[in-house]
């Protein structure tokens, strides 16, 4: 049977090509953008100038979009099916966090931004539990 299988097995490999992920991942990237959203909402509360508010809204939406992008990269590219053993609620975690980003995008309530930071911290915990910086960052060279 195995000789038959050997005989049948194709010799040529064709690739259903996917991008080569660089392997560098860190939830800090998402966190920094989410912190921007947090600070912007804080500053909006302290300043009622309409021009400032307009700029703040535009910048907050842009930062929120970046937060979502970085979360998506972690979710799609870093986390693998085998990580579900260690983090069974992984998909729910990301689903809720990316939903929360959409909320922050539209919201001027600082509690929403705080909640997002907490959710990213939870994701950072999952990242650490599955390898963290040791696996996904380049070691810093100290002079």
């Amino acid at each position, binding site marked *: 049977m195995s000789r038959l299988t050997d005989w049948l097995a*194709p*010799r040529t490999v*064709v*690739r*259903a*090509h*996917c991008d080569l992920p660089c392997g560098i991942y860190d939830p800090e990237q998402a966190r920094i953008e989410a912190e921007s959203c947090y600070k912007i909402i804080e500053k909006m509360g302290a300043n009622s100038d309409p021009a400032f508010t307009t700029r703040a809204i535009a910048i907050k939406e842009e930062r929120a979009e970046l937060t979502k992008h970085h979360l998506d990269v972690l979710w799609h590219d870093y986390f693998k099916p085998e990580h579900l053993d260690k983090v069974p609620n992984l998909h729910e975690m990301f689903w809720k966090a990316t939903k929360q980003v959409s909320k922050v995008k539209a919201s001027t309530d600082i509690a929403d931004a705080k909640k997002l930071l907490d959710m990213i911290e939870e994701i950072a915990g999952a990242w650490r539990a599955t390898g963290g910086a040791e696996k996904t960052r380049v070691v810093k060279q100290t002079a």
Partner: protein
Amino acid sequence: MARRARGPWRVTVAEASMLPAIAPGDWLLVDPTVRRWPRRGSVVVFREPDTDELAIKRVAAGPGEEVRFREALLRLADDEAWLTADADAPTAAAAGFGAPRDSGRFGPVPLELLVGRAWFRYGPLRRIGRIR
């Protein structure tokens, strides 16, 4: 033509950008003699323009046809085809791979780089059948 008849006639698939129609590890029969391709919807084996590796994708548009790319409409030349992945990024990611690479990345594929049409899966046993 003679070059094509030498094959490959049988190929195995690596990576996941053609899920769910074609999975990594599938064994496929390839017809390297088909002359009237690329027909829209066919799955083809070709040499990837920027890597020269043998790759597999689906014909989204043939020579002279129009294809939507980002916000624009592209008209293909008479000697090129637009090849796309079946899987989207989350599907490929769920199988443990990065985002699919296709014409969206490497542009239209010159017909001379097409190698054949994948038309039948003969392994694994439980998935035997025509490629659609």
